[in-house]
C-alpha cells in the first residue's frame, strides 16, 4: 500500500524524523492564516508531481488562495487532487537522497543514500550512490550511519543528524512492514538542519492486519478491482475484450499471455485461488460480467479446486446472470470427467486442452 506524502510525514514525525511544519486541507475554507511562504502540494500517488503541475508556491499571502483553487479538484494525469499539503517553504542549501528498501535479490533491506538528491535515483551515476545491504539478524547498528555519512562527506554534526534519521527510518521500515521508505529530497537548510522535504512510504499489504492505523484505499485501483479484492479475489482490470476466470496466479497469467500472443486481449486477471467452492465461481462471474467483456474464457486445471465444482459454478452463474456472451471453458485435472458431464448436461462444451480454448475464444472477439 502506498501512503500519501502527508501520511508518510505523519509517520516520520512519530519517529522523530524532521519534516517541515504543515497541514492538510481538502477544501479552501480549511486554510489557515498565511504566516510564512508555503508550498502547496497535491496529495496524489504520482512520481514527478512537480513537473506535472501538482506543486505550487505561495510566497506572499495573496498567492495562497489561487494556488489552492488551482490544485484542489484538478486532474493531474489520471489522478484527481482531493487533498493538499500546505507546508512551510524550506531554505534549501543542498538536496540529498536516502531510502531503505527491500533488496529482493539479496533478501535483505538495502540502504541507499546519495549526495545527489531531488532527482530520480535511477538517473544518478553509480559512483554517487552508497548502497549497503543490511543483515536482518544483526539489525540496525550505529556503524551503518557512520559508513553512510563517511560516503556522503558529512562533518560530525551532519553525520549525527543523518545517522539518527537513518536509524529512525530503519525502525519505521521494520515496525511498519515497509517495502520502501524514501526521502527525496532530504534537504539541508540554511541553518544547517536536515529535513525530509518529501516522503514515499510503501507498506506490505499482507502486513496490514497489524497496522490497523493505516487504512488507505489504494487510489491506483479501479472501483471494480477494489470490490474484487474485498471479496478476496486477485483481480486486475485490463483493456482487452476477453473476460478471464482461471485458477492459480501462474496459470491465470499464462492464460493472459497466451491470449495476447493470439491477438486476443484480455479484459481482466481473475484468480479463483485455491478454495474448492461453487459460490466463489459464481461470484467470480459476477465480477467479470461487470467488466462487460465481449467473450468469456474459463481455464481450470483441477487440483485443490476440482473441475466438477467449477462446472457446477459455471452452470449456476449462467442461469443466475443470464450470460449472453460466448463462453469457452477448458477443464483438465482432478474430476475432469465429472465436470465435463455437468457442463454437457447443461449444454455447455468444454475443451481439455488449453490452447484449443484460447484459439476458440479469440475467434469470437475477432468475429465481432
Amino acid at each position, binding site marked *: 500500500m502506498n501512503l500519501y506524502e502527508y501520511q508518510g510525514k505523519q509517520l516520520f514525525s512519530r519517529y522523530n524524523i524532521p519534516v517541515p511544519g504543515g497541514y492538510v486541507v481538502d477544501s479552501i475554507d480549511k486554510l489557515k492564516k498565511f504566516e510564512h511562504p508555503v508550498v502547496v502540494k497535491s496529495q496524489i500517488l504520482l512520481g514527478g508531481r512537480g513537473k506535472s503541475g501538482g506543486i505550487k508556491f505561495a510566497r506572499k499571502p495573496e498567492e495562497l488562495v489561487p494556488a489552492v483553487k488551482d490544485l484542489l479538484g484538478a486532474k493531474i494525469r489520471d489522478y484527481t487532487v482531493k487533498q493538499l499539503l500546505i507546508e512551510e517553504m524550506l531554505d534549501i542549501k543542498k538536496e540529498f537522497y536516502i531510502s531503505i528498501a*527491500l533488496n*529482493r*535479490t539479496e*533478501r*535483505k*533491506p538495502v540502504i541507499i543514500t546519495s549526495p545527489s538528491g531531488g532527482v530520480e535515483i*535511477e538517473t544518478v551515476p553509480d559512483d554517487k550512490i552508497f548502497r549497503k545491504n543490511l*543483515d*536482518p*539478524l544483526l539489525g540496525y547498528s550505529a556503524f551503518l550511519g557512520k559508513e553512510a555519512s563517511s560516503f556522503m562527506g558529512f562533518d560530525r554534526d551532519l553525520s549525527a543528524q543523518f545517522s539518527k534519521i537513518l536509524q529512525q527510518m530503519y525502525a519505521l521500515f*521494520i515496525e511498519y*512492514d515497509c*517495502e520502501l521508505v524514501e526521502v527525496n529530497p532530504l534537504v539541508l537548510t540554511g541553518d544547517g538542519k536536515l529535513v525530509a522535504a518529501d516522503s514515499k512510504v510503501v507498506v*506490505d*499489504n*499482507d*502486513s496490514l*492486519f*497489524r497496522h490497523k492505523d493505516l487504512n488507505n484505499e489504494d487510489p*491506483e485501483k479501479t472501483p471494480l478491482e477494489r470490490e474484487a479484492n474485498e471479496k478476496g479475489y*486477485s483481480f*486486475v482490470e*485490463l483493456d482487452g475484450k476477453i473476460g478471464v476466470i*482461471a*485458477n*492459480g*496466479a*501462474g*496459470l*491465470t*497469467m*499464462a492464460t*493472459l*499471455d*497466451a*491470449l*495476447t*500472443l493470439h491477438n486476443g486481449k*484480455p479484459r481482466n*486477471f481473475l*484468480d479463483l485461488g*485455491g478454495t474448492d467452492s461453487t459460490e466463489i465461481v459464481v461470484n467470480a462471474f459476477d465480477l467479470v460480467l461487470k467488466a462487460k467483456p465481449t467473450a468469456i474464457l474459463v481455464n481450470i*486445471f*483441477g*487440483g*485443490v*479446486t476440482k473441475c466438477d465444482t467449477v462446472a457446477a459454478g459455471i452452470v449456476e452463474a449462467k442461469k443466475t446472470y443470464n450470460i449472453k456472451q460466448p463462453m469457452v471453458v477448458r477443464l*483438465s*485435472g*482432478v474430476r475432469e470427467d465429472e465436470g465435463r458431464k455437468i457442463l454437457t448436461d447443461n449444454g455447455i462444451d468444454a475443451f481439455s*486442452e*488449453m*490452447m484449443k480454448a484460447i484459439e476458440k475464444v479469440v475467434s469470437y472477439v475477432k468475429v465481432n
Partner: protein
Amino acid sequence: MGYIVDENTKVVVQGITGHQGSFHAGEMIKFGTKVVAGVSPGKKGTQHNGIPVFDSVMDAMSTGANATMISVPAPYVKDAAYEAIDAGIKLIYILTEHVPFHDTLEIFHQTNVRGIRLLGPNGPGVTRPGVCKIGIMPNQIFRKGDVAVASRSGTLTYEIVNAITQSGFGETTVIGLGGDPVVGMTFIDVLKLFYEDPETRRIVLVGEIGGNNEEKAARYIIEHGDKRKKVVAYITGRSAPKGKRMGHAGAIIERGVGTAESKIKAFTEAGVKVADYPDDVPGLLK
C-alpha cells in the same frame, strides 16, 4: 535429507486440525509420504486421520520428524517456523499465503545461518514421485522419470507437469518455490541440486515476472551448468502491465526490473529454450 526430501523424510504438520492441513496431510499419506505427527496446541494425545497429534513440535520430535509443513494462518507463521527451528527441524515448508514479507525475511535468515532448508511461503511444496511429497500438488499428475521441474507458481506447475507426464516423460522432482517476493529457495539453489542429481537429465524452470531470480539462474547456467542436462524455461507475465501485481505478491514489474523480456533474453543467451505456451514445454524437452 541431502536432496530436499528422500525416503527418510518424516513430516510433522503444524496446523493439522485446520482445513488445509487436515486435507493435505491425508493426500500426502496416500502419496506414500511418512507423515509422522501433527501439531495443534491443546490437542495432545489425540489422533487426526490416524496421525498422532502433539501440543508442540518439540514433543512431536519423539516421532523422528525432520521436516515440517506449516499450514497455520499468516499472522502465526513466524512463530510456527521459529518453533520448528528451535525443535531442530531440518526442512521447513510453508504452505500459507499472505505471510508478511518481513516475517519471511527473518525466517529465511534464521534458517539460512543454521543450515535449515526453507521452502515457500506460498508455494505448492516439493514432490519426488515414488519417494515423498510435501505440500499440495495433486497426486495424479506425476510419473517417475528424468525431468526436474522448479516453478514459482502452483496450478501452472501442475499444468506443465501434467503435460510432461502426458507426453511420455516423467519427473525426478518437482519444486514449487513460492509466489512471494521473498522465498526460501531460489532457482539457483534448486539448479545446484538438479545438476548434482544423477537421475535428473532434463530441467524445466517455470519463472514469472518480478525480481531477477531468472536472470541470475541464467548466469548460473552459463557459469556452472552441466551441458549434458537440457534446460527448458517458461516465463509468465509477458502481457502484464507495469506496476500491477498479477496475483502473486512477487509478480510485479517495478521500475523496469523484472520484465518477462529480460528473463526470456537471459535464458536464451544461456542456451535455454523458452516455451511460448505451457503446452510447448514437453516438445522442447525432446
